[in-house]
């Protein structure tokens, strides 16, 4: 999938992104590139923008009557606007040791950070407020939500971590995240999810219970999905897992099977709780994350609109 010179998406290629060292630059680059690459996007605009006129029916808020139309036509029309949102988005980013695996241009950690920065930038650009919580064995950094575009700097800084540690109990960590975020908002959970599933799902459930809008970005390296190793290899477990010397080809089928079970379990767990789940490979273009996010937003909006209309 070679990026052509006139293809605006060329900037979204992980290899290209990897060449940009500064994360905020990356985010800007990615988001600008992303937006400019979208033509006539129906999602463009913000919450105070006018959408359409509709005939008044009894029960409508008369404040939304367009009097100018009434004056001209003598009919009552409701002037409809995008619902103004005051979105608080918190990005929960996994910076544990396992995120540091990766053989491609970006490891999972870099990829997750880039994706998080991009999302943050995109949100900030939409003048939503964005906060960041990083965690490994415990919550590491907490950046409160701000909507100023300059907030991106703080977020990017917080992503940096010197000594990654292993994850412990995801439930505990997610409880703390729940406690940290007081008001209802959107939570973007970016992690490789290489933890025990029941506590993870319980933690996610907890977030869901708090009426947060949870979105899971499951970042995995291609190696982890394909397991392309050959020859006798000693796999040294990250995060204090035991090591194993084996012929990887012999175990590949079993590995892929176990991985499939895991992915199904995770996906099913998320879907059961209404959590939006996306599996992201580190070789995927970054716009995948963004487009998934925007799809999600649109889904929320339409559901909110449906609720509103109802």
């Amino acid at each position, binding site marked *: 999938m070679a990026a052509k010179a006139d293809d605006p998406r060329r900037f979204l290629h992980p290899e290209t992104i990897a060449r940009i060292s500064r994360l905020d630059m990356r985010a800007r680059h990615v988001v600008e590139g992303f937006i400019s690459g979208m033509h006539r996007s129906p999602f463009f605009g913000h919450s105070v923008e006018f959408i359409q006129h509709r005939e008044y029916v009894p029960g409508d808020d008369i404040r939304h009557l367009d009097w100018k139309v009434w004056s001209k036509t003598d009919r009552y029309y409701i002037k409809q606007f995008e619902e103004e949102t005051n979105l608080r988005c918190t990005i929960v980013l996994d910076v544990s*040791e*396992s*995120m540091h*695996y990766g053989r491609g241009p970006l490891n*999972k950690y870099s990829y997750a950070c880039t994706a998080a920065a991009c999302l943050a930038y995109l949100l900030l650009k939409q003048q939503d407020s964005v906060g960041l919580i990083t965690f490994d064995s415990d919550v590491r950094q907490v950046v409160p939500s701000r909507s100023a575009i300059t907030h991106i700097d703080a977020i990017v800084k917080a992503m940096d971590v010197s000594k990654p540690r292993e994850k412990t109990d995801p439930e505990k960590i997610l409880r703390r995240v729940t406690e940290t975020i007081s008001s209802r908002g959107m939570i973007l959970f970016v992690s*490789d999810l*290489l933890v025990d599933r029941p506590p993870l799902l319980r933690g996610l459930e907890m977030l869901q219970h708090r009426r947060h809008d949870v979105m899971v970005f499951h970042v*995995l*390296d*291609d190696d*982890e*999905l*394909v397991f*392309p*190793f050959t*020859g*006798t*290899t*000693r*796999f*040294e*477990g*990250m*995060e204090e*897992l*035991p090591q*194993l*010397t*084996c012929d990887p*080809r*012999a*175990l*590949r*089928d*079993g*590995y*892929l*099977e*176990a*991985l*499939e079970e*895991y*992915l*199904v379990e995770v*996906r099913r767990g998320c879907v059961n709780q209404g959590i939006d789940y996306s*599996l*992201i*490979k580190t070789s*995927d273009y970054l716009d*995948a994350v963004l*487009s*998934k996010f925007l799809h999600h937003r649109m889904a929320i909006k339409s559901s909110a609109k449906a609720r509103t209309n109802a």
Partner: protein
Amino acid sequence: MLESFLFPASMTAGGLLVSSPIIIHLINRMRFKRVRWAAMEFLLKSQKRNRRRLIIEQLILLLLRILLVLLIALIVARFIGVFFGPVQPQTSQHLILLDNTLSMNDQFLENGESKNSFKEAKRLVVDEIAKNAAKASKAQQLKLIVATEPQEVRFDQRLNDQSVRDLGARLALIEPTALHVDLLLGVKQARKLFESTPQDQRVLYLVSDFRQTDWSGPNGEALLAELAEMRKADVHIKFVDTADPPRKADEKDSPYHDNLAIVGLRPESRVTARNRMTEFVVTLFNYSLTERKNVQVKVKVNGQDRADSSVPIPVLRPGQKTEARFHVYLDQLGINQISANIDPEDTGLNIDNTRYAVVEVRERVPILLIDGDPANSRKEGGDAYFLHVMFNANRGVAAGYDLVLGVPADLERPNLEQYPSIYLANVRELEDKRLAALENYVRKGGNVAFFMGERINPEFYNKKLYNDGNGVFPVPLADRATPELSAEDKEQRLLANLGDPQYQMFLRNENHAIFKEVFPYKDIFKFLTIERHWPVQRSRWKPTPGKTEELATLPNRQAVDDYKDTTQDLLTKLKTVLEKKDYDKYRTRFSVYHDALRDVLTGKPPHRLSSTIEAMLTDRGQAGNADLPNLAEFWGQTDREVEDLRGRFETLRDTVQYGDPLVVTGTYGKGRTIAWMTSIGRKWSSWAGDFPVSATFPVVMIELQKWLTAGTSDENLLVGQPFGIQLEPTLFEDKVRRIYRPEGKEKGAAGQPEPKAEPGTQPGDVVSPEQRGKVDQGRLAFSFPDIVKPGMYLFEFTPKTEETTSDKREQVGFAFNVDTNTESNLLRAGRDALVDKVKNGEKDTGVRFYTSASDQFTDLEQKQRDLSEYPWLFLLFLLVLVLEQALAVHLSFHLKGNEAAMPAGAMRPQNV
């Protein structure tokens, strides 16, 4: 375990290599990449799930690889199999018993090239037996012995290319001999040689031409029995037939080459006088199935052709002996070599186309005469007077003889052998010592003639000389001689004979050499007068065919009355027989004879009785005349009564006709004897002195002398048979020189001086080193076991003399001939008979029969079949290889192309 492999070293290496897959596996385990891995959970899970399967699969792969190495090792090391029985012998002992006897000279033409059975045998030994045996994978030891000298192992090496070449070189030096040897000796030696290696596989090859004579009869049975014994001792017996034409499979009677052989050459005497025609009898045998015609027997004397003596033989009937006579004029003093030759044949044996004889030619042949009355011997009226006159006249037929008058004491003299014959005339008796000397002399080939006379002591002659048939004298004597005739009796006999001359002596065998010459003139013996003789006790004696023979018989002097009753009885019987209706026609004629016989019985001389009976028995009548029927026809009837009657008439005729024997011959040991029952001089008989009978006397005497000496000249000395000479130690020194004188010696080219010969030898002679003998029972004995070439051999002795330095030497000569009886008949033994007898009804015994033209020798290879010869081993190898590859591919989880299989859950949803 390792004995299961032809190349155990390869198997050892293979065994070590078996560990290589394990080692490679272990090395691979030690060389690994390190990966820090986050998703250990799935890996561990996978490992936990697949652990058992993986271990099993890996183990199977490992095993397959080990199996591959093992199979390669098996193929290279050539696994022969595991033996659960007794340990298979590691070495094979091949023993070739090569027949090199006379019959192996049997020659034939193949593609224009002259070959013989022995050449073929050598070819088979090298090209077929040795080369094929050398192909075997185990150690092959090959020994070779030849039939004539089985004790000497001619070749003993382990077989390889070099030693096969050695064998060829060694065989090139071996030629067939002229000997006959029983193969049994070789087989026994082979058995002895095998005894030292009982643990090895033993194979005996009998490379021979398998002639019927060698394999039948008691010798053949013994040979087959010995082979059967060896076979029982697990020796493989291989008959290799080299004779031409090669036997075909399932051929019962194999064809064989025709062969014509001279089986005998006999001079009239071993010792003959110079310038006399000496007669030889040559005997040929046609060993073929077809008649041979116009065979010329050529004669050589001392290597010189004697065309005048050669004799043609018009017809030689198949399977029969044919005799021919020829005369040779011998003018060279000393020992002469005479050979009879027939032209060489294209096929068959040529070595038996020549036969040798040795005749010693002297100026005169000495005869020792021992006279009972030596003082009067030479005087007229003396017993031996006429012998002296005749032999010493040295003229005519009697020329060349030297009658030496001796006394009984001369018998004790040691050089008795110099006399070919001894005459004892009217010798009363002999002292025991002299008798023993005489007996010894005759036993060893001397000849003696006894002439009777008034001095004879019958007791001595009967007890010592006759000795119940075991002595040197052929007949027992009556107690006394016939009484002297009175003058009246003499006159009466003479008158009676003048009126009706009757035979005074009957010759009983017209073909006997002594009387053959005079037989046509036998009527002359009607005028012979024999007044007295020594009767023979006929009750105690009858001629024994082959030992004693009655040559001449005196007439019966009994009165005819003695036979009256018997004759009457027979006539009565005849009458009864003639009453049968079938014999009607003979009756009238028989009545004539009946009357004649009855007439004879009325006091006529007995010879009338016998002649009448003879006439009756032989009357052939007149054809067409019914009055004169053929009586011989009647006597020839198969009627038992007639046969019986005829027998009795014949007996009566003989009894009446024949009186006492006059001349009886006998044999004793190798010598011949003759008993002359009346005096040799004129005392008792008129034969020597009275005309006309005396005209036959010298002829009969010379023939008698010739006959006597001819016996020993027939001495059949065969090459290869033990031969010895015994001498008086007091007379000869203990040394002997043997000289072989080849007949057709090549004369040196013209101008080239002949090499100087030693005294007593001639150029071309093969002189053996001087040999010493040993004294045995008072005799000096020399033995010559190694006479192998046919021809003449001279033995030279040194007589002891008073002078210490004496160059005088004495030579005796003997002719050695090939054993035609056992070797010349090329009839071949039946293949199945041999094999079956050795197998003795058992199966799979290792007994095989090979012929020269077949390619079946390849089964001698004894190549042990090993696994690498079986295709299924390679199939198995291939199968294992395929399995291993399949499993390896399976276990390597090859990915198709560059596509990485993604788990379904990893598929990202399509966007945009």
